[in-house]
């Protein structure tokens, strides 16, 4: 970065909140994307940002973007840096805007059960504040401990209890965001509005391409007073899927409904004594009164009508207590040269789900490779599928193997009527599939990007939008 540019940034942030040391640039050049992690085992070449800045107010964000627009400097917004889809990986010469100093809870409206917080607050920190007043957001994505509210919003994430509490878009009441020209957009905090298209949804899932989300007001729930656990084992995989569908059709609202195939079951319960095996459905109901118990008993009736055996509550309790374990899984695998592990997520309607799952299993199977999956976050319409693909290749071949896995997965998802992404967002390798899924919608999205960000400064490359798109 030139000395002049640095001085300009220092005028906005002060010298201590602008950094361009080699270690800072290096650490902010990566996120947790498997493809890039395995590539970096063999090469130190990477796109480095020019500098990192830490805004503390929305006005500083506004000044930054105005400055960047004028100078046509790319800006990448950074929360926890835990994206699995390269959402925060900067292009060369970018300025990384780390939001973690904007982490205040600015309003706790206990009466209306709405919390307003700045985008840089970590998921656990926000939940901690809510816990102190007996509330919960109910949003627990796998990397909950490491990621920020802004990351949840910009990714359009979902969590392990989203069946009951909804994914993040269901929680957002209003947003504040800064557009690339520095103007500040605020939506109204009201229970609902019929004021034309919902601008919140423009920013949700935008992966930092349209501006920077700086604050959000979110719907909260009472922290549950009761919680019940149940687990069932199905001899036939499809019987478990049917049980889930029937439960949701009846309007049951479990906090968690998670159905794992045998390899996923083995992983999930590996540390449990007397661990279950086979196809295991875990149910967690929580709430404030007898409804949780009542719903659990109705769920049991449905499950048993679908040819299963009851496993008791221990397995479900174990899963709940270790529900973030899947986020820790990759480390021991990726620590080994030649090893790879990728998480692929999709969602489909109940009519398509069984076939799609069978096709994905076939498409991703390979020698020396393990494919495991679970179905979760169900509704009356359908459910999400989360697949983990793990294996070994000769060192140096990991990236190629992962690309091949993705190609097979995306093609199968497209043919099977699933969505390209359920909760992780879109990586560069998913763009063609995204174009196909959105159709004309992709052109509209690109036009909107041009309109809002004519200089293409915001997270260039994301969604396949470069500076000239």
């Amino acid at each position: 970065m030139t000395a002049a540019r640095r001085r300009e940034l220092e005028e906005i942030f002060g010298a201590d909140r602008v950094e361009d040391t080699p270690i800072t640039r290096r650490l902010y050049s990566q996120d947790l994307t498997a493809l890039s992690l395995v590539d970096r085992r063999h090469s130190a070449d990477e796109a480095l940002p020019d500098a990192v800045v830490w805004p503390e107010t929305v006005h500083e964000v506004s000044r930054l973007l105005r400055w960047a627009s004028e100078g046509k400097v790319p800006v990448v917004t950074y929360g926890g840096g835990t994206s699995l889809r390269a959402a925060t990986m900067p292009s060369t010469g970018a300025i990384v805007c780390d939001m973690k100093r904007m982490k205040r809870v600015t309003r706790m409206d206990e009466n209306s059960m709405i919390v307003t917080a700045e985008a840089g607050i970590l998921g656990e920190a926000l939940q901690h504040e809510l816990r102190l007043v007996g509330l919960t957001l109910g949003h627990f994505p796998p990397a909950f401990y490491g990621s920020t509210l802004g990351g949840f919003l910009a990714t359009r994430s979902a969590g392990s209890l989203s069946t009951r509490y909804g994914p993040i878009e269901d929680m957002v009441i209003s947003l504040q965001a800064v557009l690339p020209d520095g103007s500040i957009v605020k939506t109204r905090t009201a229970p609902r509005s019929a004021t034309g298209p919902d601008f919140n949804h423009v920013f949700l899932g935008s992966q930092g391409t349209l501006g920077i989300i700086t604050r959000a007001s979110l719907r909260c729930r009472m922290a549950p007073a009761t919680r019940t656990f149940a687990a069932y084992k199905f001899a036939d995989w499809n019987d478990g899927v049917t049980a889930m569908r029937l439960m949701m059709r009846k309007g049951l609202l479990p906090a968690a409904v998670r159905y794992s195939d045998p390899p996923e079951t083995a992983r999930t319960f590996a540390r449990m004594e007397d661990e279950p095996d086979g196809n295991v459905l875990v149910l967690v109901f929580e709430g404030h009164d007898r409804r949780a118990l009542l719903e659990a008993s109705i769920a049991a009736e449905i499950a048993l009508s679908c040819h299963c055996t009851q496993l008791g509550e221990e397995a479900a309790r174990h899963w709940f207590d270790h529900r973030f374990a899947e986020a820790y899984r990759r480390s021991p695998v990726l620590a080994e040269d030649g090893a790879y592990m990728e998480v692929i997520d999709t969602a489909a309607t109940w009519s398509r789900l069984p076939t799609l799952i069978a096709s994905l299993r076939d498409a991703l199977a390979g020698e020396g490779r393990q494919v495991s999956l679970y179905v979760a976050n169900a509704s009356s319409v359908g459910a999400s599928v989360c697949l983990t693909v793990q294996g070994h290749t000769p060192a140096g071949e990991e990236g190629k193997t992962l690309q091949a896995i993705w190609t097979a997965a995306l093609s199968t998802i497209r043919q099977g009527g699933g969505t390209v992404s359920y909760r992780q967002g879109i990586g560069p390798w998913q763009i063609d599939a995204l174009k196909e899924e959105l159709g004309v919608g992709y052109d509209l999205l690109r036009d909107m990007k041009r309109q809002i960000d004519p200089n293409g400064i915001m997270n260039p490359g994301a969604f396949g939008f470069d500076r000239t798109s």
Partner: protein
Amino acid sequence: MKPVLNQHFKSIEFCTYCPKMCRFACPVAEVTGHEADTPWGRQTLMHLVREGHMDFDADVAAAIYRCATCSLCTEYCDHNNKPYEVMLDMRAEAVKEGIEPSEVEEFRQFYSQHNNSYGDNLQARIKTLLPEIYFAKSSQVIFVPSGSHIVHNPSVIQDTFKIFEAMEIDHVSCHVGEVMDTGAHLRELGLMEQYHANAKKLSEALAGYKTIVSGSPTVVYELKVMYPKFGYELTPKIYHVSEFLWPFVRQGRLKVRRRLTQKAIYHDSCRLGRDLGVYDPPRDILREVLAEPPAEFARNREKSECCGGQGAFPWIDQDASIQIAQRRLGEVYESEKRLLVTACPMCERQFRLADEKLDVVDLVSVVARVV
């Protein structure tokens, strides 16, 4: 340097590929928001150095000193990783290679000048605090005072002996000698040569006793855990003062005049709690002297948050260390507890620096108020 990194291979690699699941627990990262200040960031730097993608230079060395070694990250690690152990070992390497931050050199000079971390003649000062009788060598139980208490809050030491007297524990003498400091900060800053010289002398001075007691978890941890690790095995049993007092309290030896009616909240120090596993004795004692049991922080016991004073971190970045303490105090203000009780001089000092108006009291001084 490479052998040290290879020795920590698993720890470094597991952190490098982790989605930063402990980051919210890292007090330094929470106040700065900087990725380099997270356990992931520091370990990733170690990974890059180990792989040869980055030099072990002064910038990297500066980053590894920005860990308060509070060990809370480990509580949220499914793999029981201990990134702070890597940082401590690599600090020693940084010193060997002469790339340590300037603050470390300043500390080295300070320590050499005063023969302790606190900047006073501790030997002379302790003699002014207690009657001569307590320095007699005949006792089998020796109390090792905290340097921080001697300099910053000497009344805690006087309160300790007042309680011993009130409880008729008359077999404890107070340590005074050439070495009054365990040298914990030397080790934490990687100054191992001075640390060894210091540890050798102090361990020899304390060798003849049957029991060692201290009001400082840092002292207890150093003598009980770190000295043996570095070859200075001490035969005496070593206790924090709360562990030492509790059996006597349980026997009814503490005659409470009138229980304190102030509302109190108890803060677990990292060293006393996570590192030494002492959670209940301070609480048990407080229940005997308070009208109402002490309140708890939402994150308490194993999950207790750091005060910012650990790991010699105030020597590296005092502003950040105080911000860490202020962050912890947020909950005290919200709970309207008037008395913040801790059993660690480091925590006590940090909280006082963070808010001089707050009533921060050592456990021992709370007890002294009722005897």
